[in-house]
């Protein structure tokens, strides 16, 4: 049975469509990733699936229950780790977990056992008696992951689980997530805007942009779409003409232009580079640098959306700044 089944899901806020007719399903036991820039609609998708927001239209089932009509059944079956900390700083780590376990109707003995277990899992046993307001960012995130697991959810939602954490803590959390999925069979849906994270962790990835899924497949196959190697040429001169020229070459699979950089995919890229350079110079342009690498998810994202994820975020940040400016005036 599918752990998650979504059909034409749409969520609009006033005049903004945050999630736009999205359909997908996640089989039981899968580690599924939603990849996209901030503002792509990942968090809204998670909020609808975890019953915090009502869908505007379309249908969604989690663990076999409709998220709009059977909220309590869905809530019992899921664990959620939100993007922003959702802890009570005036309670200790253990008390936060106690609160959660009691809310999920667990008996005293089971509660104590499970809390000890999950505290051990995230290595917070020593600090369980400290007030959460004294915790570091990484400790808070670990405590939240522990909390999401106490009631043995069938589906765990992780919204940007490693946002703002240092490299070492991030690797730690990746290990937890992997072992949860592999050893405990928990279906996991995570959102991220880190390509590397999606690539390392996920069985399948949906690339999300402007509220829609632009691609959905395994990381390997997503990268295969581009095929072979990615060759980037930094060029000075008539770039557009060159692009048209190169698209005509039969061994070039895809070609796109991004400022002064031509990015192409092809087999055996290292053998084609001299030919590309010669061709460029024959057209009176100058190659200033050449780069060859195996396709990454970054290239896949660029391929599907026409911009890099960083630029997308920069433009969102820019828009936000402008809106704030209006607000302050």
């Amino acid at each position: 049975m599918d752990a998650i089944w979504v059909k034409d899901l749409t969520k609009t806020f006033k005049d903004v469509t945050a999630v736009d007719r999205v359909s997908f399903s996640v089989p039981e036991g899968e580690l599924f990733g939603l990849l996209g820039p901030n503002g792509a609609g990942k968090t809204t998708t998670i909020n609808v699936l975890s019953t915090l927001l009502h869908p505007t239209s379309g249908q969604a089932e989690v663990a076999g229950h409709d998220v709009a009509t059977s909220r309590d059944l869905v809530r019992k079956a899921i664990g959620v780790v939100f993007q922003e900390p959702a802890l009570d700083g005036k309670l200790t780590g253990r008390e936060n977990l106690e609160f959660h376990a009691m809310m999920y109707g667990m008996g005293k003995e089971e509660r104590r056992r499970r809390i000890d277990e999950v505290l051990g899992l995230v290595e917070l046993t020593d600090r369980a008696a400290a007030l959460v307001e004294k915790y570091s960012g990484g400790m808070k995130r670990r405590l939240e992951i522990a909390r999401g697991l106490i009631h043995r959810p069938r589906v765990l939602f992780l919204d940007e689980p490693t946002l703002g954490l240092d490299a070492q803590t991030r690797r730690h959390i990746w290990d937890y997530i992997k072992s949860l999925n592999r050893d405990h069979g928990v279906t996991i849906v995570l959102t991220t805007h880190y390509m590397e994270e999606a690539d390392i962790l996920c069985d399948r990835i949906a690339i999300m942009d402007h509220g829609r899924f632009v691609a959905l497949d395994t990381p390997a196959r997503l990268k295969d779409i581009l095929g072979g190697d990615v060759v980037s040429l930094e060029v000075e001169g008539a770039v557009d003409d060159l692009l048209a020229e190169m698209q005509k070459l039969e061994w070039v699979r895809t070609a796109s232009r991004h400022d002064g950089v031509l990015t192409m995919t092809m087999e055996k890229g290292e053998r084609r580079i001299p030919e590309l350079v010669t061709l460029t110079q024959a057209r009176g342009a100058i190659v200033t640098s050449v780069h060859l690498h195996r396709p990454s998810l970054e290239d896949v994202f660029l391929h599907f959306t026409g911009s890099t994820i960083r630029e997308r975020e920069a433009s969102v940040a820019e828009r936000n700044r402008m809106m704030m400016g209006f607000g302050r005036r």
Partner: protein
Amino acid sequence: MISLTAVYVMWLREMKRFSRARSRVLGSLIMPLFFLAFLGLGFNRMPIPGIAPGVNYVKFLVPGIIGMTLLFSSTMQGLSVLWDREFGFLKEIMVAPVSRVSIALGRIAGGVTTSLIQALLILAVSVLLGFRAHNGLGLLAALGFMILISFTFIGLGLVFASRMKDMQGFGLVMNFLVFPLFFLSGAFYPLTNLPWAIRGLSYADPLTYGIDGLRAVLIQTHSFPVALDFLVLAGFAATMLFLGAYFFEKSESV
């Protein structure tokens, strides 16, 4: 539908937070104590029209200050949903598999408990200042009035907190609602001293009946029959609790 465990958990959380916020609790008691001490002692020997002969001003003021303490602490308790929203904990509450009514009831139970503790502390201090309740039964009845006052204003706080997205409206509620409710309630002076137009507003203020009821049972001086005080206040309490729970149920959690 109503999960007693969830009500208890919400209540327990409130108790833990309360017991760890001693300095804040003490701080919130300072203002009513200043009012009680300086207004009470300052006006104590002045004759004030409308106060029954034989009732000195401190005696008259104590029920008013108790009402004030309950008004402020209960409204704050209702509005505390805003803090949970600000610090993210509201999501953890909202995603739990329990009905929102249970959550609202748990909040109300916690709020009533902490507000009552604060009101009783004020009462204890006023005993040190020479205040004496008429009799034990009156004290018990006063407790009933205190609970109804607390219910009313927690409900009010919940209504506003459920409608507001962030903390910005907090100051507005305090300045344009809570303070007027306080001044209109007759906490400081008999309402008969107010011009009739303002007195009309006072009659729409639930705290008016709460404080009059408290005066009736504690010091046996009142403007309305005590049964009327009780019925009107109970009506307000039931309505506000229902509205508070209703709006909380309907609120968006993110």
